[in-house]
């Protein structure tokens, strides 16, 4: 590990830890249950998004089918808890089953390239959803209920989720800086050239798919445990798979913190929009997605203009430039509306 060279390097190293500690200590300030719930959901979705990002962002294989792993995580955790095991064992079990499923899915689909692969993953979600709807052991279409003996403790769920997202960030960072991460980036750009250098794209994709599925499965399990009740139309829904994809893509595909940002945005949109304007969230996501593709494919975290603009605004608030600019703007507006008379030059008639 080399020490950072400059301020931004130090910031990149220190800020995540600060954030982590802040989140750990947050309950000390007695926040409302709703805040805890929102942070919980953000963490869960960010974890799933970070998982997807490993495959879709780093390796460049866009999968629409991650709802499968989310749902498998949910159901496995539920079933294991039902059999008497601790929830944490359930989460691990969920991850394991998700990873196993990822092999079965990847074996045929990773022979496909580009959009063929994407379309195949769309089909996978559909197929699994149909099957899960028909299975009796999991309660079929009517869903599954998790019953815990202990009383509902929001903080326990909160901490579990925070640890999960921290784990996901850690895994992402380790992979990104390893030889495996380098290979994945190569596969993303030019799979055949990578093969000519000794990288086996097929097995690499299978492995990263497994890790990604595992993380998503953990997220699904944590979600299910808090929700207490869920059904295939919820955890295996096509929409869930879309959400898991949208989060890293909007936030910043291929980066480590992009999915986290995406998770934050996602929850903000869900909470504010779903409350007031029902069912407009699809419109927002669709529009955001289109904007990202056309304007800033790297995602919002990469948008230098956005951050620079916000930074300048903040600095300006303190140094007065923002106020000056606002004032000038106001003057222009008033002049246009003829509330302010333009200056007359002396001597002219």
């Amino acid at each position, binding site marked *: 590990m080399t020490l950072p060279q400059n301020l931004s390097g130090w910031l990149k190293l220190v800020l995540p830890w600060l954030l982590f500690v802040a989140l750990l200590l947050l309950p000390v300030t007695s926040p409302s249950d709703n805040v805890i719930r929102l942070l919980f959901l953000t963490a869960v979705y960010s974890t799933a998004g970070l998982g997807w990002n490993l495959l879709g962002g780093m390796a460049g294989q866009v999968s629409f089918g991650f709802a499968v792993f989310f749902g498998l995580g949910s159901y496995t955790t539920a079933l294991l808890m039902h059999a008497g095991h601790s929830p944490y064992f359930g989460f691990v079990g969920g991850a394991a089953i998700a990873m196993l499923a990822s092999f079965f899915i990847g074996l045929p689909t990773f022979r496909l390239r580009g959009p063929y692969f994407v379309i195949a993953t769309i089909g996978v979600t559909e*197929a699994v959803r149909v099957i899960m709807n028909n299975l009796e052991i999991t309660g079929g279409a009517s869903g599954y209920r998790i019953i815990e003996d202990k009383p509902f403790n929001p903080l326990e769920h909160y901490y579990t989720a925070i640890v999960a997202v921290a784990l996901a960030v850690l895994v992402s960072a380790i992979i990104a800086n390893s030889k495996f991460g380098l290979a994945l980036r190569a596969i993303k750009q030019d799979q055949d050239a990578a093969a000519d250098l000794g990288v086996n794209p097929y097995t690499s994709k299978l492995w990263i798919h497994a890790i990604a599925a595992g993380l998503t499965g953990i997220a699904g399990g944590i979600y299910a445990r808090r929700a207490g009740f869920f059904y295939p139309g919820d955890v295996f829904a*096509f929409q869930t798979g879309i959400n898991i994809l949208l989060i890293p893509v909007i936030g910043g595909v291929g980066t480590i913190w992009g999915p986290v940002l995406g998770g934050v945005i996602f929850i903000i949109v869900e909470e504010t929009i779903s409350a007031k304007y029902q069912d407009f969230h699809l419109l927002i996501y*669709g529009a955001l997605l289109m904007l990202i593709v056309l304007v800033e494919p790297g995602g919002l975290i990469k948008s230098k203009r956005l951050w620079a603009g916000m930074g300048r605004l903040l600095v300006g608030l303190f140094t007065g430039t923002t106020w000056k600019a606002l004032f000038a703007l106001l003057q222009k507006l008033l002049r246009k509306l003829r509330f302010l008379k333009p200056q007359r030059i002396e001597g002219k008639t």
Partner: protein
Amino acid sequence: MDAAEYLDLLLKALLLAGVYAAMAVGMTVVYGVMKIVNLAHAGFLMLGAYFSFELFNRFHINPVLGAVIALPVFFLFGMLVHWLLVRWLPKSDTPTLASLLLMFGFWLVLQNLAYAKWGNDDQSIFTPLTLSAVHIGDTISIPKVNLVVFAAAVFCMVVLQIVFHRSWFGRSMRALIQNPYGAQIVGVDDQRTARLTFGLGTAFAGFAGALLGMLYSFSPDFGRPFLLRSFVIIVLGGLESVSGVALGAIVLAILETFSTVIPFPWYHQGWKTYYLPPSYQPVIPFVLLVVVLVIMPKGLAGLFNRKWKTA
């Protein structure tokens, strides 16, 4: 199951194939000429259904006529969408992720607009045709709706065949399908052809959607199962000919229709013969897609071409 029942199923499958073909054709031309996997195709299908629905409910226009009206309307709509959104996509001779995500985002927007206007409930278009059927013998009964839809779909494909092979525009399309760079070099205006192609693809989607609205009930989420089927048909049938699409549609329709009646052996406390439960039917296009893509990447045409050596 006797011969008459098989025949009945076969006829139903063929009729279904006609509809599938009409639905897939729109996606095929866009994919072939512009190498864009148009996920918004599902949205256009859905809008086509709602378009005909509105015409039927407000102006009492026969849905088949509504479908025909949809052709020019959606053609213009498609050109507008291309001009606003699609033309900014980076060009490539293989499909790009950006195009996929862009069209997907657009599909989400369309879905949401549909929700806002029509709500979440399933709608249907009922005409006197819907409930009457043509009867042949005792067992074979074909709803008249299916026949009408099939006829319209065939008409649609004939039109496309003519455009494809006998018009300047069709030739430009075929050139771009086969060799994008070469086509540009010889002077094919790829922007204009792309715009027209997208319009054409959208027109067919609207047309097919209106027809499908007569056969099935629909909601804003309507297009999704058809997306997968369209893509399977494209992969099966290849990109260059209408007959390829037709062939792919026939294969898919027959497999789907007959899947519930073909017995297969399965081991569960002893060997038994099972029939696929109808609720598992949606799995078939997916399985077929994976099988085809892994075994015959060039579609059925690839299977035949391998035996040919002309040198």
